[in-house]
């Protein structure tokens, strides 16, 4: 079960600087740990996160093994027009999750 928590303000004034917060459930297994019998636990992490605002990319990040489990990513952007934020997380073993949130800009 993968779930995401997204926090985008429902409304904003044109030109406002708004904060966007995202939390994605993921174990973020580093690939550096071993089992009690010595086998390496294979790496299983999210490798990339992107946010698009009405189709335009406004934020992107590469993720690495040192990230905590359930990565929390927050960033700022400028409210330009009403529409949709689309979020995508991709990672090892074909991991791919998306989420979206709407904003009304006046």
């Amino acid at each position, binding site marked *: 079960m993968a779930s995401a928590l997204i926090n985008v303000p429902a409304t904003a004034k044109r030109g406002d600087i708004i904060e966007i917060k995202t*939390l994605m459930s993921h174990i973020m297994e580093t690939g550096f740990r071993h089992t009690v019998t010595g086998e390496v636990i294979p790496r299983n992490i999210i490798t990339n996160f992107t946010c698009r605002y009405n189709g335009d990319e406004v934020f992107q990040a590469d993720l690495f093994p040192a990230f905590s*489990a359930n990565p929390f990513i*927050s960033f700022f952007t400028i409210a330009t027009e009403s529409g949709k934020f689309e979020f995508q997380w991709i990672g090892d073993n074909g991991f791919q999750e998306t989420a979206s949130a709407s904003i009304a800009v006046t």
Partner: protein
Amino acid sequence: MNRLRNISLSLLAVAAFTSLAEAAEIAPGERRSGASFMSVETLAMQTDATANPGMLWVLDGEALWSRKPVAGRACADCHGDASSMRGVAVRYPAFDEKLNRPVDLEQRVNLCRVDHQQLPPLADESRDLLALTALIGRQSRGMPIETGTDSRLQTFIDKGRDAFMRRQGQLNLACTNCHDDNWDKRLAGSAITQAHPTGYPVYRLEWQGLGSLKRRLRNCMIGVRAQPYSADAPEMVELELYLMSRARGMPSETPAVRP
């Protein structure tokens, strides 16, 4: 492993000072939640529902709450909306008439799985069990803990209290030596705190995940090199019961965040 060894070594230092003082219980007015010992950043993470990773389990719990088993009914079919569980978690562990003993919230959920859904019980610390208890616990966030008012629980609370006061493990320390006598000190960089279980299941940064009160208690028992109780041991429920009744009146923080 390294971390365990470090903690054990520093426990020797604690052993030195605990032998001086004898157990004194904390006065009700002086009780403090573990949250009050945390950094402002960790506290902010707990308070902000969109930054608290425990909320991911609450979301999963919502999905499970209304998921229909192959045969039989979903939790929601009998209980309605999860908000009907408001005030429930702050009464647990509670006395079960059929079993004639206290059961904790995890056991209560599993009783419903077995008796009312004809499903096998969920495993201790499994994601699904944590998700359901986080969802149920979340409904009581901010409400005062009420556990232990039922007089049928008294003998069990007393047994839990005895366990809390009894020295155990290779380091020969009782819970009270740390959590009543030395709660204002630190151990290997961690605040010892008063051990009030106000936010379980909690998202612990060290675990990188959500865990039950039982997992927390096992950590403390391993820390003094004692053999921890198994998850369903009556002694475990008695200890949970004592801790919850000791925190009676304190507000619930579930799902809390701890370092």
